[in-house]
């Protein structure tokens, strides 16, 4: 099995991580899990909205455009977390706050006025279609980004 081969490189990576510079720390440790989840949601929201915008735009333009918007936010946060550094951290904080506002706003909107949405978005009903991860993600994201600052300071 080829599984034994990467072990040496893995051990090397472990040693590197202890001397890792602060600029790359955003995507390490718990940040790695966040990067993965944000990456998954970027792909999910982007492919979903692109498909729906092309194949069935007329059915629910508002819902699909909102999904596309959320895909952009997810993509930007993923990029910021991977890139690291203070600037990226601040940009990610703004985007996570925007994401939280979006989830809470659209979630409430779908509850108050379901008629406005002919089809659901990624953030409908606080992300119920996605196991409520969309509402949990920005909160964990903001907590991690706050802690990352105190760690580097």
């Amino acid at each position, binding site marked *: *099995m080829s*599984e034994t081969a990467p072990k040496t490189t*893995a051990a090397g990576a*472990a040693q590197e*991580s202890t001397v890792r510079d602060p600029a790359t720390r955003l995507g*390490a440790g718990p940040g*790695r899990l966040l990067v*993965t989840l944000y990456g998954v949601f970027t792909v999910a929201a982007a492919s979903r909205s692109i498909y729906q915008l092309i194949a069935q735009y007329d059915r629910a333009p508002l819902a699909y455009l909102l999904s596309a918007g959320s895909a952009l936010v997810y993509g930007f946060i993923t990029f910021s977390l991977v890139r690291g550094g203070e600037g990226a951290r601040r940009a990610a904080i703004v985007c996570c706050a925007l994401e939280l506002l979006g989830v809470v706003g659209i979630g409430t909107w779908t509850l108050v006025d379901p008629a406005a949405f002919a089809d659901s978005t990624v953030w409908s009903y606080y992300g119920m279609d996605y*196991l409520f991860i969309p509402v949990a993600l920005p909160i964990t994201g903001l907590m991690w980004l706050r802690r990352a600052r105190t760690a580097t300071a």
Partner: protein
Amino acid sequence: MIDALTIAVGVTACALAAWCGFAAYRNEPTKDWHFIGMAVVSLLCVVQLIVAIVQLTGGHTPDKGTALFLAYLLGAVACVPATGFMSLSERTRWGSATVAAGSVVLAVLEVRLFDIWGGGSV
């Protein structure tokens, strides 16, 4: 799509998620045995991909569209290997947690695949 295969991928994905989640809980990085587990799940996904493509070329049309089905199918194949590589460069408990998250995503994708294909009917 063979229902038994879809269920097999879903169940092994859940088992892998629990196993790697346990490793994360015990503050351990992914080890060789975990990678063998990931290889088994990934292999099942590749078999599923081949079977599905053969059946698609054989004339079956998924209930909710071929494009949607193929997108989910490719996502399912990529899930575990992608998070596996992530855990190679993150040799902490968080690498294990990442693989666990990827496996949960795979299990969810299998449920959706079953649904898009037209659950139950072959």
